[in-house]
């Protein structure tokens, strides 16, 4: 509520700032009697969740906004108890099944069954409840297979809204059962407009240059842009043009790590880098982000031939990382590989030079 991100979050479809056509389509969809399963996907900070919540509000009215947070317990066949945090109103339940790790199949099945089997009598105009599953792309294959049957079986009483960053890891079978809604990241002018409007409503004025820099730093992530704006405001108000735009620490940290890799190549540095990886991983920064951050920073210093080689290596290693479970091995392997390639390249160019 108090963060601007929450405070100025649109609550109805009509209030959305961008992708208006899509909002219109959603509204039409809601106004019809029936409602399909949805698969909402798009990059982080594009407004997927906002849209989903708007849809829910359109469906059920204000009552969908009355939320309670509670722990749900599930039992695996091996009698292990899993606790999962759910956010639910009377009409919908939101859950992040990837919290359960490899037991997500049980969570998905049990939750949908539990939701679908209890039927509200005073449900009003809708006969179905909604289960909102976030991070569907992190579901295991088993869970996705389980999902696809339950989706059909309980369609009369339960609709699913799936939320994912990318559909590449969502089974085609599930994709075909849903209406896919892609929410692209807002464009830079759109973000800028939103920043300006927020400032206006807060009674502030933001210089255009600062807004531009925020947009640039945010990488078209609207949530991050708004948080940056707020951090800037806390930092210094009235705004100045050349004000520092704070980035999240982890990004800076990854960038520093990458520059360590570029500056010196030796096992000793590798050891330091490993400890930095551990730092990042223990703070539950997703390893894909670490990988991408590293790569982006590393290839800045390379020529095209080298870029190609490194990106190839990186893609191979990241693929292995996704399939494996000990991320540190793969991160370090990439770091070491990059170092050797880069070292060879530097030595070669030095030889040519002399």
């Amino acid at each position, binding site marked *: *509520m108090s963060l601007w991100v929450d*405070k100025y979050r649109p609550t109805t479809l009509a209030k959305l700032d961008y992708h208006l056509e899509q909002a219109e389509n959603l509204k039409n969809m809601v106004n019809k009697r029936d409602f399909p399963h949805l698969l909402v996907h798009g990059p982080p900070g594009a407004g997927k969740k906002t849209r989903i919540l708007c849809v829910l509000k359109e469906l059920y009215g204000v009552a969908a906004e009355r939320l309670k947070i509670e722990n749900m317990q599930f039992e695996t066949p091996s009698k292990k108890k899993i606790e999962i*945090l759910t956010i639910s109103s009377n009409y919908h339940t939101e859950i992040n099944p990837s919290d359960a790790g490899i037991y997500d199949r049980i969570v998905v099945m049990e939750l949908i069954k539990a939701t679908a089997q209890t039927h509200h009598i005073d449900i009003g105009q809708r006969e179905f409840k909604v289960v909102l599953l976030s991070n569907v792309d992190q579901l295991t294959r088993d869970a996705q297979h389980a999902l696809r049957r339950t989706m059909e079986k309980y369609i009369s009483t339960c609709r699913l809204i799936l939320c994912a960053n990318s559909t590449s890891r969502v089974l085609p079978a599930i994709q075909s059962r849903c209406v896919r809604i892609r929410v692209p990241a807002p464009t830079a002018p759109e973000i800028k407009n939103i920043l300006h409007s927020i400032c206006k409503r807060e009674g502030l004025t933001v210089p255009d240059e600062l807004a531009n820099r925020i947009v640039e730093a945010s990488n078209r992530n609207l949530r991050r842009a708004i948080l940056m704006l707020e951090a800037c405001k806390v930092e210094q108000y009235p705004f100045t043009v050349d004000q520092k735009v704070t980035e999240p620490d982890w990004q800076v940290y990854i960038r520093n790590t990458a520059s360590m890799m570029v500056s010196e190549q030796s096992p000793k540095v590798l050891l330091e880098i490993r400890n930095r990886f551990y730092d990042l991983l223990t703070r539950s920064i997703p390893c894909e982000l670490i990988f991408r951050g590293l790569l982006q920073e590393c290839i800045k210093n390379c020529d095209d031939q080298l870029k190609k080689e490194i990106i190839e290596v990186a893609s191979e290693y990241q693929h*292995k990382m996704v399939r494996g479970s000990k991320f540190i*091995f793969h991160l370090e392997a990439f770091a070491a590989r990059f*170092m050797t390639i880069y070292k060879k390249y530097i030595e070669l160019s030095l030889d040519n030079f002399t």
Partner: protein
Amino acid sequence: MTDEYPDLDMNEEFDLIHKADYEALRELEGELFEKRQLPQSDPSPSNSGTSWIVNNNKHQANVEISAPDNVDKVNNMTNNNKNHLLSQSDPGPSTSGISWTANDNKHQSNVEIPVPVNADKINNITSNNKTHSYEKYCDSIPSSSKKRNCEEFLSDSSNLLDMDIPDDFIFGIIIIKSLFLIDTYDANIIEEPKEKKLRWDQPKKVIKKILDVRQLLHENENTPMKISYNNKKNSISLRVPSWNFVAVTRSYDSQRLYIRVRNQQNNIKQSTSPIANLSSVPYKQLKIQAKEIMARKQDLSRQPLSLCDTTNIINDELWVDKYRPRSYIELLSDETVNRQLLHWLKLWDKVVFKKNVIKPKKKLPNFGKKNNIDDKKDIEEVDSKGYPIKRIALLSGPPGLGKTTLAHIAARHAGYNVVEVNASDERTPDTFRQILLASTEMKAVMGADPRPNCLIFDEIDGAPAASIELLLKFTQGKLITKKKKKKEQSENMSDGCTRPVICICNEPYAPSLRALRAVSVIIPIQEVSPLRLAERLMDLARKEKLNVDFNDLVKIAERSGCDVRACIGALQYMGSSNLKDNLSLGLKDTRETDKLTQGIFHNYPEICDRKLNNVPMSLEWFQFYDLVISLIAHKQIWSLMPYTNYGFIAWHLYLARTQKMKISYPTVTNEVTQKSAKNTGILTAVRRVCGRDVFTLTTDIAGFLPDILTPKLRTVPSHLYSSKEKSDLARIINVMLEFGLSFVQEKNFQRGYIYNLDPNILEIGVFLNCNAHRSLAYAVQQIITQELEVERLKRASILTGLGVNSENMAKSGNPETVENVQNISSNVENNTKQSRKNATSLKEIVYKDFFGNIITNENKNGQKQNKIMNRISPKSQEKYSLMKNILTKHGIWYKYKEGCNNAVRRNLPTGQGRTTWFDYPARQASERCSSQDYVASAPLQSRDLRNAVALVSTVEAMLWRVLKQEVYSSSVNSRGQLRNRIEAAVHQISPD
């Protein structure tokens, strides 16, 4: 004859053996001691020594032929031998030696040469013997049995080197010997002294016992035997020799003997050197001859060679078995434990052997007094029929301490035949019953050893519970028949168990053994002390001619957790040379590839210091390892498991260095898991309040919170803040509430106290050396904490309270300012009384909208009221309605000053437990109210009740102000009293 044996050495040896025998026998055969002392007391001089050596040989030969315990026969034979020997001793010393040897050989090799031992014939044979045997052994294809005899012959005849014997013969013998390259199946040849004396005049029993005991004792003897330096002694040894050898077991007493294995070349060199002095034939000539013979024998020797190899393998037994204690006195386990078990076994004597139990005092003079008392209760009680009260002995202890060995030896020692049932046997109740009946009711009739059986149930903790139950029933058979007569099987169990039953388990407190524990004598076997174990290992190493350091042995013993079996195994396979480096081999956990991988991963950057080229390759193997492990974990494809090991080869090739490196244990993984567990804890705590994704929290919000939570606030009291600062303060408090954060005072070493965030999300958001983050001043943090507390109270009251003034309540959904909050709080007063009651029950129910906004639905106010009415107990409902009536009817209204609505309770130094309520200036009041001191000063209030109590105080302040009565200045001891007073006050008002 006397030349033939180095009598000095031998005699020493005999004395020692004799001495050991003497002691052992005294220990074991107390009552028979008297009888034995006589024959043993005079050690034989050199003359008798030689005589009985021959005797012994004869004896052994006979033993091989006849039944080993046929003492009569033995005696006859020894007599015979004696005579024979005497007849032999007539000729000159050199010839007698030959004749004797020949005789011996003839006698032993009577398979091929069926000439019976005949003293008269010997002289005749003697002359032919050399050439005859030479020809015979050279020409015949050595079958295994023949080979044996050859070997015997050879070993004996090697003694003839000193004597006048044609060189070619000796040489031939040596060649043969070298060609045979070994093994003999039986080792009768050894002139190892067995009997000290001729005892044909002894009672059979004594001799038999002595034989038994001595055989058992030979291995236990600690004084190292002197190795005599003549050839024969070099070739055969009782101890483990330094030269190449083949171990063989003498069949009749399972004595281990070691027979030399020689290379052909080596042998020739060795053997020719002494001959060079003696022989008249030049060395070269000998060599040519030898080569001829060798060439002739080459093809012949091929077959036996292969044969020898197989027997080699068979005889190469584990040291664990080799050095297994074979008699009671060799046991390594604690003596009291051994005694305890043995004593318990002896209690059965009356039942089993139908003889009186020997009185314990006499029997166990060495018993510790403490044990004695316990045992009297536990074991020594015998019921009227002579059965021990506890019919089962339960040996318990960790693996490798020799429980099974102890049970076996004790049982055998007490004169039982051991019947063992272990985990490898089927242990269903049916088979169990069969075994029980068969072993306890029956007895071997056939065979030489008609002893009663003693049942040993090894590894009983793994047996099915039904079987154990059956065992219990069986041992208590008598009781069962008394109660339920003529039930099935009752006839079998009429007497209960008539034989001792020993159970062995690792974990005596296993649930399946609960019933068993109650009825059995529990004998826990303690761990051997590492030092004692190391001594034993040292002894063993000495026997095996291993050159080991005692400290290393202690280390092995410690590492294996005093597991004797593991230690000996480690010792055998590590050998002596690299024991120090391989100490880790003795560790029990060598199969954990995961730990190993971690270790390599942890240590490699230190090890490959400069070379970077190999690192990526080895890291690819780490990736491979991870992939395999993940596949196994996720899809249970266990067949991939072997592939995890290939990485180690690659890592070795890529990373290994010749220098020794210091290697550290990979503790990092542990730290990492701990850290990430802690951080996930923080994240879930935050999520529980704000309900966001982990992803969003870590990547976006946590990164910006450190900045957003540190506005620039001056370190002045909060009422002096400018409006901008006030709004900043309000905002930070809102943010903190939204994420469920709070400041917690913690002790710091330097400054006294510091404030930390409670779910410390800053830990996740802040990295070292990245962005510079401001931190709040201590005073500011204090202010924030106070305001936070106030705000929290207010929200709690809003949530539970009933909005009377709906306009203000509606505003709560809008962006709050401090003034706004104050307005709300002023309206809350009416509800506080009620909310106090409900605070505890309803606090958890928090209605929020999507944006974390607290929802107080004014439209459904009445409905909600009813809801609450239903939830609270009837009694408090009554009170609630009463209060509500009073408050609304009389229009009690209270307008608050700016600041906080909380009054404060202060302890007065005068009356005990007296509390008075003061109207503090608002700021001060709020400060006091929310400070930690306040909470601490109220011992009656648990922290959970803090909100409720604060609300009580609000009500009280209100009433006090309104009524202007002095009711509350009187002592208030408890909350209960307080409530009563409020009610009383309310009653006082109501008539007005």
